[in-house]
């Protein structure tokens, strides 16, 4: 909204067209740095990537147009399809558990308690969120180790068999998901706590007086109220999960085999390892398209489902 100035009043000091002109001029000047930087480092690169995805990039002999070859290659290659599937599967699990557990934690913390206790809870659950995945993944690598791993040590101590957390292709992906949830669920918890505090107390109290069971209060009153935030959380978590990179690179290097390799890893390997720039560009276009589709679908769904 622009500043609304009643014209009769501005007429006293200066002409309103002058004011509009200086307003527009200031607007353009203020937006200029952001616009230039955004054009240089986001918009233009995205467009160039789209163009590159239709070419075979060769700096020596000149690049040539190859149509949909790169995309055809991606969608017919067994390995890249496996990696696409890995990424989608990871995203599905990571989003479900991050958002679900975050919501549970928020409900658990949304009660009266001394302020210092809430401060400590927020500190503990949010700390993993703000420390780089690159750092905590190294720590988790030692926690999830086979023989010298911290977790297996305690499993053996209580008489359970050790688990091949990262060295078995059937469990490796789950281990990555577990670390991801440990790292990110606090973010969603914080968002949900704020949302829960916006639920009108009068309605909740009325339900309590009526003897409505707690789970029904939650489903009928609380959840509809915070549903816009839940949708935001799902979109946000999906965008993040589809880009998963460093936690996997550090924990498993994509292995065993290709069992945990993600699209981001493939992009780096093809683009900067094999210098298949065109192919890597096509993969990143596919990834972006998935993100846009998921965001779009969730927008449509939320319009339909969310109570306004």
């Amino acid at each position, binding site marked *: *909204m*622009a*500043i*609304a*100035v009643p014209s009769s009043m501005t007429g006293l*000091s*200066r002409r309103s067209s002058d*004011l*509009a002109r*200086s*307003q*527009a001029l*200031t607007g*353009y000047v*203020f937006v200029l*740095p*952001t*616009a230039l*930087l955004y054009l240089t*480092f*986001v*918009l233009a*690169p995205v467009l*160039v*990537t789209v163009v590159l995805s239709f070419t075979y990039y060769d700096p020596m002999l000149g690049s040539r147009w190859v149509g949909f070859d790169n995309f055809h290659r991606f969608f017919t290659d067994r390995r890249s399809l496996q990696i696409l599937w890995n990424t989608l599967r990871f995203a599905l699990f990571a989003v479900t558990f991050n958002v679900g557990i975050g919501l549970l*934690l928020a409900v*658990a913390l949304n*009660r009266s308690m001394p302020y210092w*206790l809430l401060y400590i809870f927020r*500190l503990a*659950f*949010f700390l*993993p969120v*703000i*420390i*780089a995945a*690159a*750092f905590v993944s*190294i*720590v988790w690598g*030692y926690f999830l180790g086979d023989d010298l791993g911290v977790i297996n*040590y305690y499993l053996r*101590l209580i008489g359970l068999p050790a688990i091949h957390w990262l060295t078995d292709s059937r469990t490796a992906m789950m281990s990555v998901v577990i670390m991801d949830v*440990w790292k990110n669920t*606090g973010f969603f918890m914080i968002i949900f706590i*704020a*949302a829960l505090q*916006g639920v009108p107390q009068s309605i909740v109290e009325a339900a309590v007086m009526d003897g409505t069971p707690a789970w029904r209060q939650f489903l009928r009153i609380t959840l509809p109220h915070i549903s816009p*935030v839940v949708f935001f959380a799902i979109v*946000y978590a999906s*965008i993040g999960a589809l*880009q998963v*990179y460093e936690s996997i690179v550090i924990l498993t290097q994509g292995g065993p085999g290709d069992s945990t390799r993600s699209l*981001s890893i493939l992009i*780096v390997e093809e*683009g*900067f390892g094999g210098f298949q720039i065109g192919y890597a*560009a096509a993969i*990143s*276009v596919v990834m972006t398209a998935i993100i846009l589709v998921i965001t779009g679908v969730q927008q449509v769904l939320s319009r339909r489902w969310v109570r306004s």
Partner: protein
Amino acid sequence: MSRWVQTRGARRVINGMIIGIMIVLAAGMVLPFLWLFSMSFRPVADAYKLPPSFFPPGFDFANYREVLNSRVPFVQIYLNSVMIAIVVTVGQLVTCTLAAFAFARLRFAGRDALFFILLLGLMFPAQVTILPIYLGFAKVGLLNHPIGLALMYLTSSFGVFMMRQFMLSQPKSLEEAALMDGASYAKIFWRISLPQLRPALSALGIITFTQTWNYYFQARVLLGSDTSLTLPVAMDLLRGYMSQGNLSVVMAAMSMAILPVVLLFVVAQKFVIEGVTMSGIKS
């Protein structure tokens, strides 16, 4: 009446139980940090010994000295991280606030279209911009320069969006009064809007600093030479050099690497939480 009292008692017990469970979970959340911190003080010979320790056995800084004397130029790398984080944070505070003021308070042709295009940036992953940026940086000689990484993030769609949302929630009466008195828009921004934005500036500043400190994907692709690295990428390198089992030394490096972010969070938790919820709730 008695039934009501009874349920109130039951509620209290359930409350206590839930808080008890949360305390256990919270302890579990910080366990990896306790481990890495106490590991950094373990003598190298004991590094892999089990059981693991979650409290430092003593405070001998030998491992920390080892990091500084290793073949990895740790001090240089640390300074790179500090430089990038400060340049990006200051840059974003300036560019995002200016743009947000324009989008929230000024009227000009193309404003809404421009804002929409800018918001699209929230959905583009780093993966879809990195190849052209890499090729471009290679051309102009910015590969392997920490400053290249800083340049990329001098503005952000998220920052503009967040500051705009905050500005929209602020009353405009003071600004209108100043306009009546003949103040220019630039002056109104500087004298009236900016001081009101202080909490939002702190939140955006802390979020940006943390995010920049933690970049890995971009740094790994754009920075290659040892002296140009940032801390998250260097940690991997350090782990490689120390593959002979010098776990304690890696953890000493890690303790130093996460220190600024942890301190920032402990001191300014309020702003971080506010910033996160502000951006999460209002979109």
